């Protein structure tokens, strides 16, 4: 079995189907991109995988173990970390404290957790900001912080929900570099993105969702030429123009 | 246990009557909650003040409380506006606990003001027809209670009609559901908040005199009704108007009928209400009828 295996996942909210018959897998070391128009069910899928939402049907396997129905914190402990579209943090705590709390998951002592937090902050280039309360950070900084926190939880898989939204091109390049480097260090990624340049350049594989269902799967090049994908986006100009 | 149908029937009637008052009181509370998202813990004290106004208008000018409604309701409306503008508006964006404490502060102030001005004595209104009854089958129903019931029901239903069918009502519902969108549509949300809070208070301007015709008046009377009003509001769904209506009737009924079946002092019956409340909060916090302001 693959590292992460999703089978026949389904979830509806009040009669409206958000996700239906969704199956896909993610192998160790891959970077899988998930794209689709707004409302396609991408974030819901993340919520289902990480336990923030309980699926109506289907199974989710991580490292051959069933994880659906578990609490989010349990899933995080097992090695799946997710970011939020709106970049969540602990607003009145400093950057360092945010990462510290995340680091405490695997470090028995406060001192060790603190050291690790500093190491990770330095690695992610956030060390100068460590004393600032996160409510004062800009959105890109908050997103970077979330990534940093995630690393502190020693994840095997990171689920990134639109981490590039709102970033300047230079910042996007930086983030792409960081993700590549982290992949080289052994972390698997599943990335939801609207910024096509990112998806095309870093994904090994791309999954396309529309109205809660998977309508296409393949390499970035393959997917960008599929007619149903182009249709889903109402005119493929969006895909081609970014290239 | 001897089962007395007459007793049961009487309990049902009384339950409906007091329930209609609960419905009216709770409508005001749920309205404020639904539109402004504020828990007005001073709601009981507004009621208390309305009752005292009714009492003194009767004691001093022999003005029948059912008539003094016409005076007291606008009075409470402006009082509500006054309180809103000075005290509520500044804390609309504060954390919930701060809002709660602010309204508690208002409640403490008003309660003790009444204590100081009116003394803790219980007062009752002795209307010429206080003891007269009309018969419903074999059962006598007090005339004041009966009138109170009809007025409550009519006012509550008109309120509902107002929200559904008038422009202002629609604007209020819009502002309640989505503040930003309402602003974009040109609705003056600040004014809506002011009006809504005042209307919530005005409900008590009706309920107060009605209640005073058959319930004693004392500075702490607000507290008892506040508790019940809260249960009704949660039960009916916060911000849900019809929910408050049916919830009020339901609670009135369960209290009244429950008192027959629960042995021992009647004062144990609120426990049932509170247990009920906890269960609702755990399993269906949107209330029996759902949350949104309908």
């Amino acid at each position, binding site marked *: 079995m693959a590292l992460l295996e999703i089978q026949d996942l389904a979830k509806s909210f009040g009669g409206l189907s958000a996700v239906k018959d969704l199956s896909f897998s993610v192998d160790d070391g891959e970077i899988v991109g998930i794209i689709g128009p707004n409302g396609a069910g991408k974030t819901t899928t993340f919520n289902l995988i990480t336990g923030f939402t309980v699926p109506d049907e289907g199974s989710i396997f991580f490292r051959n173990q069933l994880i659906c129905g578990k*609490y*989010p*914190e349990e899933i*995080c402990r097992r090695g799946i*970390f997710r970011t*939020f579209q709106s970049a*969540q*943090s*602990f*607003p*009145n*705590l400093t950057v360092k*404290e945010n990462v510290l*709390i*995340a680091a*405490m*998951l695997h470090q028995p002592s*406060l001192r060790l957790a603190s050291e690790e937090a500093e190491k990770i902050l330095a690695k992610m280039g956030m060390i100068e*900001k460590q*004393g*600032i309360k996160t409510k*004062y950070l800009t959105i890109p900084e908050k997103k970077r912080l979330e990534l940093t*926190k995630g690393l502190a*939880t020693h994840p095997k898989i990171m689920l990134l929900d639109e981490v590039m939204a709102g970033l300047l091109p230079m910042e996007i390049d930086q983030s792409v570099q960081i993700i590549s480097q982290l992949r080289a260090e052994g972390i698997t990624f599943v990335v939801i993105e609207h910024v096509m340049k990112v998806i095309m350049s870093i994904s090994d594989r791309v999954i396309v969702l529309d109205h809660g269902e998977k309508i296409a799967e393949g390499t970035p090049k393959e997917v960008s030429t599929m007619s149903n994908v182009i249709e889903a986006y109402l005119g493929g100009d969006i895909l081609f123009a970014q290239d | 246990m001897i089962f007395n149908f007459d007793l049961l029937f009487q309990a049902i009637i009384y339950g409906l009557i007091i329930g209609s008052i609960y419905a009216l009181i709770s409508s005001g509370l749920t309205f404020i909650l639904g539109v402004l998202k504020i*828990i007005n813990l001073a709601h009981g004290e507004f009621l208390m003040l309305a009752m005292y106004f009714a009492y003194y208008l009767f004691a001093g000018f022999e003005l029948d409380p059912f008539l003094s409604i016409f005076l007291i309701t606008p009075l409470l409306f402006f009082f509500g506006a006054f309180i809103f503008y000075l*005290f509520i508006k500044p*804390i609309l964006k*504060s*954390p*919930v*606990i*701060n*809002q*709660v*404490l*602010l309204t508690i*502060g*208002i409640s*403490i*102030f*008003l*309660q*003790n*003001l009444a*204590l*100081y001005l009116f*003394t803790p004595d219980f007062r009752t209104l002795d209307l010429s027809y206080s003891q007269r009854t009309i018969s419903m089958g074999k059962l006598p129903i007090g005339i004041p209670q009966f009138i109170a019931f009809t007025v409550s029901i009519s006012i509550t239903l008109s309120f509902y009609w107002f929200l559904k069918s008038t422009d202002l009502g629609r604007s209020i519902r819009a502002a309640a559901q989505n503040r930003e969108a309402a602003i974009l549509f040109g609705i003056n949300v600040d004014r809506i908040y002011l009006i809504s809070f005042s209307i919530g208070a005005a409900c008590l301007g009706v309920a107060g005199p009605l209640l005073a015709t058959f319930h004693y008046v004392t*500075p702490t009377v607000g507290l008892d009704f506040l508790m019940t009003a809260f249960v009704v509001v*949660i039960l009916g769904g916060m911000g849900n108007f019809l929910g408050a209506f049916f919830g009020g009737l339901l609670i009135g009924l369960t209290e009244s009928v429950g008192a027959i079946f629960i042995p021992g002092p009647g*004062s*144990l019956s*609120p426990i049932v209400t*509170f*247990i009920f*409340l*906890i269960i609702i*909060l*755990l*399993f269906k*916090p949107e209330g029996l009828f759902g949350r949104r302001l309908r």
Partner: protein
Amino acid sequence: MRTWIESKALLLVLGMLIFLILIPHLFTFSSYLLHILIMTFYFSYLSSCWNLLGGIAGQHSMGHSAFVGLGAYSSTFFLLKVGLNPWIGMLLGGMVAALAGLFIGYLSFRYRLRGLYFLLVTIAFAEILYILFSNIRSLGGASGLVVPLKEEGLINFQFSSKVTYYYIILAMLTFVILFTYLISRKRLGYYLIAIRENEEAARAVGIRVIDYKLLVTTISAFLSALGGTFYAQYTYFIDPSTALGIGLSVEILIYPIVGGVGTVFGPAIGAFTLYPLAEFIRGILGAKTTGAHLMVYGVILIVIMIFAPGGITGLFNDMFLVKDRRQK
């Protein structure tokens, strides 16, 4: 990165503590003034216990009187019935309250009640207890229970001089404040603060939210109950209106909110400010008129909520502490 104030704070606190310890020896107090101090410490204590759950963890409860009452009634009831030593009764009361906390906490947190809903459940829970205790004859009903006079001494937890009570409650207060300070620097404190700041984000970094909420609720309940027993042994009388009920619950949370919710000293600061002030006003106004002093109290609450929403500590922070360093 400590400010001047923070580094001198330890000295300040130590000095304060020494001063408080010496007070009964430095001044000759009337019994009344000593009583005021004791009650101030008592409420500081209860509020600090509340603060663990409400301030640090951010779960505002308006039903803490339930725990206080369970403590007071447990120890007093068993003292009356089987002559149980009040110190043991104190522990027993603590455990009863802890169980109650566990119960209502589990129900609430398991069903994801937060904010207003949690507040309401705690109110309902406390009210149920209030009604029960007011109506059950063997628990004293509305008339309450009287603590029987025993030979004075530490064993019996009864003293003729108020000074001993003063030291006991001061010790309890010091303990709970120290406890709050210590856990805020450890994993438990950080996790609770994380839960307060953003529960979802806390889950996302592996914090077992329900477990930690339950833990702090249990601790808070246990400690609050100890205060209840102290109160019973000090005043020799408890009834639903003083040991249970919404009035007590509200009072317990007013002090932390006014003093600075979530801070180590906030609850004590709030109690030290408001309680003597309320007594003072009552002294001036209360004799002649009923309720006038509480009117002033209401006004103070209103004013503070509008103008100093962060409490006294918040005001202090705004005025004296270095502003948070923002991005350059």
